[in-house]
């Protein structure tokens, strides 16, 4: 029996984050058809996973759920959580360059060019269609996460040589970790 917010927290689960070059990160996600309780539980789990990492954004693709859904919170005190279902960028302007990192490419940060301002249309947790303007880090984060839903990673914006170097290092690290276990 679960009741109240504390009970809800107890059933929330941290999910495993896929890491580059896992082929599942390349799958294109399908639109969400119904916003129901099951989806809301997934959103809760994704927030928990993201905060624990710690990260500022997480796409469903990264936890091996291939639905168009992402969560983000760029505040330092967990005060601005956003869940975006079926997000679509409908306007973009300006250019900004940010040092991006990714929970699926742990430990690497590289400069990526993105739009500085975006207007994004999505369904909220209640399933209602909303539009929102985002700028700065939040705008960058949403663009980064929508890329995930399309099977794209920030390392795709880097040179082939750099991407291969990162891939080899991560594979080696994972082998070493497996040996250590």
């Amino acid at each position, binding site marked *: 029996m679960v009741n109240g917010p504390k009970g809800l927290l107890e059933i929330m689960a941290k999910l495993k984050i896929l890491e580059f070059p896992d082929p599942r990160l390349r799958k294109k996600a399908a639109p969400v058809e119904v916003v129901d309780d099951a989806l809301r539980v997934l959103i809760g789990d994704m927030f928990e996973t993201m905060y624990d*990492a*710690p*990260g*500022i*954004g*997480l796409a469903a693709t990264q936890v091996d759920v291939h639905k168009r859904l992402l969560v*983000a919170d760029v505040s*330092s*005190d967990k005060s601005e959580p956003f869940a975006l279902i079926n997000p679509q960028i409908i306007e973009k302007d300006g250019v900004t360059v*940010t*040092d*991006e*990192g*990714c*929970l699926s*490419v*742990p*430990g690497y*940060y590289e400069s990526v060019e993105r739009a500085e301002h975006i207007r994004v249309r999505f369904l909220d947790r209640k399933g209602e269609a909303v539009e929102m303007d985002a700028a700065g880090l939040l705008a*960058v*984060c949403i663009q*980064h*996460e929508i890329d995930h839903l399309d099977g794209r990673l920030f390392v795709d914006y880097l040179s082939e040589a750099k991407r291969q170097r990162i891939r080899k290092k991560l594979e080696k*690290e994972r082998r070493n*970790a497996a040996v*250590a276990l």
Partner: protein
Amino acid sequence: MANSGARTRAVAAEVVDAVVSGGQSLDAAIAEREERVSPTDRSLLRMLCFGTIRKHWQLQHWISQLLGRPLKKRDSVINALLAVGLFQLYDTRIPDHAAVSQTVEAARQLRRPKLAGLLNACMRRFGREKIAEQAVADEQARWNHPQWLLETLRKDWPADHEAILKANDSRAPMWLRVNSARQSAAAYLARLADDDKTAELLEGIPDAVRLTEPCSVEELPGFMDGDASVQDAAAQIPARWLMADRPMRVLDACAAPGGKSGHLLELGGAGFELTAIDSDARRIERVRENHARIGLDATIMVADASKPREWWDGRPFDAVLLDAPCSATGVIRRHPDIKLLRRASDIDDLSALQGAALSALWQVLAPGGRLLYVTCSVLATENDGVVQGFLETNDDAVEDTVLPNNNIRDLMRRKACGYQVLPGTAGLDGFYYACLVKKVS
């Protein structure tokens, strides 16, 4: 998307480790690595690095309490990361949960995932057991200075050493030098006020303006055109002092990065001739840049002050400014890494160099001319020690004890010969000055 905060902590740990274990200077260590941090995080990076180095002994004392046995030498970067982590908990307004999570994540970025748990445990215990509130018996940890420097300061400044130690661990204010050839400091103060920047003047140092809040130079009115420069007010005393009797041909030895020679040019006027030399070819470029910005010219040469035969044309100078290479123990608040990089044995070596430079430059000074010996050290061995030794062996040298103005006297301590400004006095850096006159035979 991952947060760049952890990256900033990881780079901060690498910078601190490069200074503590690698002996690199803090400025160079930051310059080499700051490109890896996003531009918005660079002021945080500097704050973490400067703070952690400033509080090095105290933080290491806590780390030794928290760790049962010290980390292995090859994990020195994690020791540095733990210091960065404790500094955030102790001395910043970063929320504790953010400091802990970002610092722990940084361990993974530094390829030490197995030590992440240890960092987490240490940082949480630090807060829980209120370790920062416990009394510290160890003198180095209590004063955040190495033993040799504590002892030397106590010997040289029996009544003032505690004030010096405290000043060394505080953050220095931002001082400007207003280009008096263009406008007065009071007029510039009004321009700053138009930009909503508050600042104040200081009696006795006429071109100096102290900003209430530091800012980037691009925000300063007329900075790019040379209306003002960034320079501690104590470093503005030498040019005013030397120019008080209007010399026409002046040498600035050891001129880089060119702050004081720029000031000499601003005060020089028509027909004034300045020769600026420095032995460091790279640093002499900074002199050129500084002079170009204020739009004034000097003869600039890469040359060794202690070997005039190699560069001097034989025409004597009316005045010489010798801003001698020194321990920089007067500017520790701006360069806290000095406490880690200097060794007790450096001081005697420096004093020998300073004495040699003084003797060599005496040869290029015209009879009746004045030489101002300046250091940013507070140690007697490099200051009155050097000048006293010189006066004893040179019959044609005599000290000129007259200060450039009366208000300046309140800022100075009289030494056996020469004068000292102690760090923190009226917000100034620590400097030593001795003015010597060459007798006309």
